[in-house]
């Protein structure tokens, strides 16, 4: 396989990148000064060598524990449970949540053979049993699998002295009711809130 072909093949393995895009990226890189490709290559090597899951929360980090777990201003009583490390960045960037996280490393999915033993559930129970956590916020995805994962965790934590909440499913901001799908609208109606 030629060097060009090898790069196209590797890029095309990435999510959301088809063969055409992989080709475009490859030829773009070839038109740049060689230092640029060198920087990209060393950045790739650096992440794969240095980034590891945080031993406490499962978030991706270069140091143990991660910056969020180390941050003394964060409220250790609030624990936000997410499916993947990428969701930590999303929640942290977009909300003013200032508690800590717990990354499951996936969601329950019988069709993919993914059961409770494949998720970071024992560490979650251990953290809750530790006694510092007062509220667990289940922020799994609003999909059937995210839902069954949330109900499973809720049942797992029942009996432990902790409040368990689930992200509300509601209307997107900036939307127009006309364009909201029926499922979202129905959930938003069920989860309606008192305004006064």
């Amino acid at each position, binding site marked *: 396989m030629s060097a060009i072909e090898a790069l196209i093949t590797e890029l095309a393995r990435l999510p959301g990148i088809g063969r055409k895009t992989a080709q475009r990226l490859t030829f773009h890189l070839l038109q740049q000064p060689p230092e640029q490709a060198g920087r990209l290559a060393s950045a790739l090597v650096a992440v794969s060598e240095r980034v590891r899951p945080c031993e406490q929360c499962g978030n991706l980090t270069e140091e143990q524990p991660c910056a969020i777990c180390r941050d003394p201003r964060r409220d250790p009583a609030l624990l936000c449970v997410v499916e993947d490390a990428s969701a930590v960045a999303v929640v942290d960037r977009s909300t003013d949540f200032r508690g800590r996280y717990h990354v499951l490393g996936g969601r329950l999915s019988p069709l993919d053979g993914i059961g409770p033993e494949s998720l970071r559930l024992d560490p979650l129970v251990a953290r809750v049993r530790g006694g510092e956590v007062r509220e667990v916020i289940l922020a799994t995805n609003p999909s059937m699998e995210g839902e*069954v994962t949330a109900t499973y965790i809720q049942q797992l934590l029942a009996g432990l002295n902790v409040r368990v909440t689930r992200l509300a499913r509601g209307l*997107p901001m900036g939307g127009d009711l006309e364009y909201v799908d*029926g499922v979202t609208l129905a959930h938003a109606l069920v989860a309606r809130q008192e305004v006064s």
Partner: protein
Amino acid sequence: MPLVTTPAIVLSALRYGETSKIVRLATREHGVQSAIAKGALRPRSRFGASLQVLSEGQAQYLAKEQRELHILTAFDLLHLHVALAGDLPRYATASVLGEVMLRFAPPDPHPESYDLFRDALEALGQAPTPDVDALGFRLLWHLVSVLGFAPSLEACARDGIRLPETGALPFSTREGGALCPACAAEHGATQLPADAREDLTALLDPGAALPRLDGRHGAAHRRLLARYVRYHLAEGAELPALEFWLRRPWEAA
């Protein structure tokens, strides 16, 4: 390209590219079909949140002749079976039914299996927790039967000789049911004890009361059913949801 409109249930939904999903649908009028839902992951997609595993709706797609992948133009949600996510045993059972549909429902019209699958999801969502296990057995046997592999219990699966109406029977997964003593001697069979036979008879009869299978009987029946599905339907293919259901990972916790 003809535009097809049919009741459908989503069997799987995979991300495709940045914004699309590829769904496999059990359709009432055209068997199992695959379609691409372009832009389904965009925030204000017309598909909204409807393309979830096990959601039921009216699908509309442009059927590409000679092609495996159609273009989904609409999916009007009728029912999101959220109750199935109420606990893992329920969801695992529903997933097995979905997996059997996905792998074995013919690509041709087969309204009987579609209707059975749809009613099964509804029944499973509504069932009281203690019934989920036995109801799952019954629904799975019914689905296997409607797909053409009903186990024979009243007559020998090989030569049709009537079998005694009660008592233990030689049973052969490979032959598709119980055997007469002569066939059992010639072709081999395992013994289906009298109580297991009674349970299976009750499970196959939709009018009969749901049997209560205790831990040991439940486990034995689950193995029998899984072996039967694997042998008659899988042809060596992997069935992750069936294995998941068989190993009951929620019990380890």
